[in-house]
Structures are given as structure tokens and as C-alpha cells.
């Protein structure tokens, strides 16, 4: 199976990456051996290699090297030594070459120094040209200095028992294995918390629902009657635009704040409109700083205002921009589709979206009013 011919210079980077991914524990040694074997083959006369063939030859060279070491060690141990000498190596070489045969293999009592193997090697060194390895190889494997656990003496601690000598590693700190529970120190009043939570929810619901009613009944371009009960905080005197009048007389009964949102559209028409201010009051407080400046910039005529201008709002939430596009470009008809969408969506999500989406319309309407 061919991986494609690989040059000695290894111009193919993809092969390098694949090869490096396959490296195992001895990766560095194998890589260095591969280069060395390739250099030897090149000196013999090959100009290019198949990758698999080169790897096989590298494997064999490494095996040869290891076997030579093992055999030499064996002979040294046999002679009662732990360190090998030249004769052990020569014996090892003879053993490896036994299948091939070398001159003098049959001689039994000869001195190893004169063995055919040695002569063969000497000849080889004499004849073959010297090819040093291509790159400097660092000493490997690299031994890392381990950080040991300090002993009792080093930590200046006394071991907890007399039976423990001081030079042993110290025992771990108690906080590493003793778990002490941590209590919450804050005083909580569950009743007060619940009441506060309910109050905030009611507030949000009220504004959302009234807002929704308002918008559904007269569309996005609408006015509102001045509310008798008002939470007007920032702006005073919301005037009703006579040209954008509502079908109902102002000053009629206030709509109760708790209204089911799934009521059909024609029922909503019958209700009075709550002041925009009242509906938007909580949201106004939140985004007052962002809208007040931009809201006054000549937005007298709604359809002509480019949505791009309003996208400069500092709150900068994405769906603000989208909702403006929807409201301005598509006009009044969006009210109906909003209803449909509301019915599908989740209650909470709807509320949140309504608050944030329609706060941007508020400054326009304020300027018109």
C-alpha cells in the first residue's frame, strides 16, 4: 500500500502531520532513527522512499540495535560482569550475523579481536563515506526533577506520634481532608421576600397587560387619554392628538389591571385606553437615560424615520432594532400578528419581550403627543 513517495528532504507537510499523530511513547527516538535510516539509504543510492517501507526499515534498525544491546548484556552477565566491553559486543554481532554467515564463523577458539565481523566493520568504515547526522540531537529522554512532598523536618513540624520519624514526608494539612460546613450568615425573612416578589410581579404584569391592550386596540400609532390615576413621573401634560383619536370617549372607566391576555381582539376594542405613561412607567424608569436624547430627533412623521437612526440606542439589544423595523415599516397591521404570536408563546417570555420591545416606541409617541 502506498502513501505516495516521500522525498528525503520531506517536502510534504501533510505526511509529517499524519506521521506525528501516529507517534507513540518512543516517538522522538523513532523519528530520529527514521531520519538516520533515510540518510543511510540515500548514501546507498536510493533517491526516494515509500513511507511504509522507510518505517519498516526503521523498525528493523531499532530492533537490531536493541537486540545487539541485549545480547551484549547477556554475554557480560554470563561472564559475571555488569558492564559490557568490546568482546561482548563482538559476540553479540556474531550472533546476529550468524544466519548470514561471516568469515571465521566456524572457528571456535579464535580470539574475538580477529573475528570476521570486526574485519568486516573495519572495512566498512574504511570504504563508506562519512555522513554525519543531519541535525544535532539533544540528550534524551529528558529526566524531570520531581517535586517531592517536604518532610516533617523541612516543614518544621513535629510528627504527631513518637513512632513516626521526622524525615518522612509531612502529613497533609487538616483543611484538605476535613470538611467544615459553612452557614449563610444573612438573616432572611421568607415572608417579606415573598411579599416583595409578589409586589414586583404585580407591577410588571399591570404595565404589560395595559400596554398590550392599548396597542391592540389602536395599533402602533396611537394616542392615549390622560389617565386619572397616574404614575406620571417624568413628563407632564400628555396631550391627546385629535387627529389620532380613539373611537371611545376619554374619561370613561378605567380598565381593571388584571385582564386575561387571551381575550379576542373585538373585546379589547371596547376598552378605554390607559395612558401610555402609566403603562410604560416602570420601563421608562429603566431606560430613561438611553432614550431621552434620541427620542427627540425630529421624529414627527413616523414612516419616514429610518430605523437605522433608532438602532443607535445605548441599550443596544438586538430585538429592539428588529421590533422597530417591524413597527415602522409594516405599519398598523402588525397588531393582529402580534396577537397570534402572543397566544403561542410562553407567558413570561411574552411579558419580557413586550416590555423591552415597546419601550422604544414610547419616545416617538411622546414626541408626537
Amino acid at each position, binding site marked *: *500500500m*502506498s502513501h*505516495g*513517495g516521500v522525498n528525503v528532504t520531506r517536502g510534504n507537510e501533510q505526511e509529517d502531520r499524519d506521521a506525528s499523530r501516529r507517534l507513540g511513547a518512543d516517538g522522538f*527516538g523513532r523519528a*530520529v532513527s527514521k531520519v*538516520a*535510516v533515510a*540518510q*543511510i*539509504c540515500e*548514501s*546507498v*543510492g*536510493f*533517491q*526516494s522512499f*515509500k513511507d511504509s*517501507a*522507510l518505517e*519498516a*526499515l526503521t523498525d*528493523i*534498525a531499532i530492533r*537490531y*540495535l*536493541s*537486540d*545487539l*544491546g*541485549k545480547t*551484549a*548484556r547477556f554475554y557480560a552477565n554470563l561472564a559475571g560482569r555488569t*558492564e*559490557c*566491553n*568490546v568482546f561482548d*559486543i563482538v559476540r553479540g*554481532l556474531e550472533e*546476529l550475523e550468524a*544466519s*548470514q554467515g561471516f568469515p571465521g564463523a566456524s572457528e571456535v577458539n579464535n*580470539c574475538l*579481536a*580477529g573475528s570476521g565481523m*570486526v574485519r*568486516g*566493520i*573495519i572495512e*566498512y*568504515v574504511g570504504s*563508506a563515506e*562519512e*555522513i*554525519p*547526522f543531519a541535525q544535532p*540531537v539533544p*540528550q*534524551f*529522554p529528558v529526566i524531570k526533577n520531581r517535586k517531592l512532598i517536604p518532610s516533617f523536618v523541612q516543614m518544621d513540624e513535629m510528627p504527631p506520634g513518637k513512632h513516626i520519624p521526622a524525615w518522612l514526608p509531612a502529613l497533609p494539612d487538616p483543611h484538605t481532608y476535613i470538611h467544615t460546613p459553612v452557614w449563610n450568615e444573612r438573616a432572611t425573612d421568607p415572608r417579606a421576600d415573598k411579599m416583595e416578589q409578589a409586589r414586583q410581579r404585580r407591577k410588571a404584569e399591570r404595565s404589560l397587560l395595559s400596554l398590550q391592550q392599548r396597542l391592540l386596540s389602536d395599533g402602533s400609532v396611537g394616542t392615549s387619554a390622560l389617565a386619572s390615576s397616574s404614575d406620571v413621573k417624568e413628563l407632564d401634560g400628555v396631550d391627546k392628538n385629535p387627529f389620532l383619536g380613539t373611537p371611545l370617549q376619554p374619561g370613561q372607566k378605567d380598565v381593571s389591571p388584571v385582564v386575561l391576555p387571551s381575550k379576542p381582539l373585538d373585546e379589547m376594542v371596547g376598552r378605554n385606553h390607559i395612558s401610555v405613561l402609566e403603562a410604560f412607567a416602570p420601563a421608562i424608569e429603566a431606560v430613561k437615560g438611553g432614550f431621552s436624547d434620541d427620542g427627540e430627533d425630529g421624529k414627527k412623521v413616523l414612516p419616514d424615520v429610518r430605523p437605522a437612526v433608532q438602532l443607535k440606542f445605548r441599550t443596544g439589544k438586538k430585538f429592539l432594532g428588529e421590533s422597530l423595523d417591524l413597527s415602522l415599516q409594516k405599519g398598523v397591521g402588525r397588531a393582529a400578528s402580534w396577537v397570534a404570536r402572543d397566544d403561542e408563546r410562553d407567558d413570561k417570555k411574552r411579558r419580557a419581550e413586550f416590555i423591552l420591545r415597546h419601550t422604544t416606541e414610547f419616545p416617538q409617541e411622546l414626541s408626537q403627543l
Partner: protein
Amino acid sequence: MNHNQQSSDGMHEDEAALSDFLASLMDYTPTIPDELVEHYLAKSGFQCPDVRLIRLVAVATQKFVAEVATDALQQCKARQATVVKDKRDKQQKDKRLMLTMEDLSRALHEYGVNVKHQEYFADSPSTGMDPASRDE
């Protein structure tokens, strides 16, 4: 006696030759670097502080690899000779000598190493095609 003397003289010569050779090894730089040889010898339990012996092992391995490569080269050239005979008019397509698994396995067979490789893996559209026509 004479024989012994001769043999002892021979021994001295051999030993002298060997020690000279080991000394000359320090000038010769084997292709296989010393660090690599030391690593694999240490892995197999070979203990020796003498650098000359490391060089000796490196040179022995180099000789072995060179022999195998030479045999593979001869196989490759032999194959090219048979191929070229058929197409003399065409320019020799595979001028480059490439080390392939076929040549290597034939060369290693004499050394008692049995290297076989897969004929093909059916994992790409070009499997089973003539290697010469495959894009390499």
C-alpha cells in the same frame, strides 16, 4: 610452539588492529547519532561508559542497514531492467530509485526477517490500480 607463536602474533595483530580501529572511530561520525544509540542500548540494559563502544555499535547498525538497503537497491534495479526491456522507445518513466515494500521484503527475506505488507486496502477509489499510474 610455532603455531602458538604465530597465533599469538596474529592475536596481537588483531588486537592492535582492533584498538587502532576503536581509536579511529572517534574521528568517524556515524550516521546514527550517539544519543539515539545510547537511548536504545540503555533501554535494553547495555551499560558502558565508553564512548568508543557506543560508536562501534552505531557503526555496526549502520553497516547492517546499508547492507539491507544495498540488497533492496539491487532488487529495484533488477526490476527496472526487466521493465525497460519492453519499452525502449519511451523514456524511462521511473528513473528515480524508490525504496518500496516489495524490494525491501525480498531483501529482508535473506536475513530471516519476514516483512509482508497488505496488497491493498479498499478505502479509496484508486485502490487496486496499477501503482505506476497512480498519482504519487
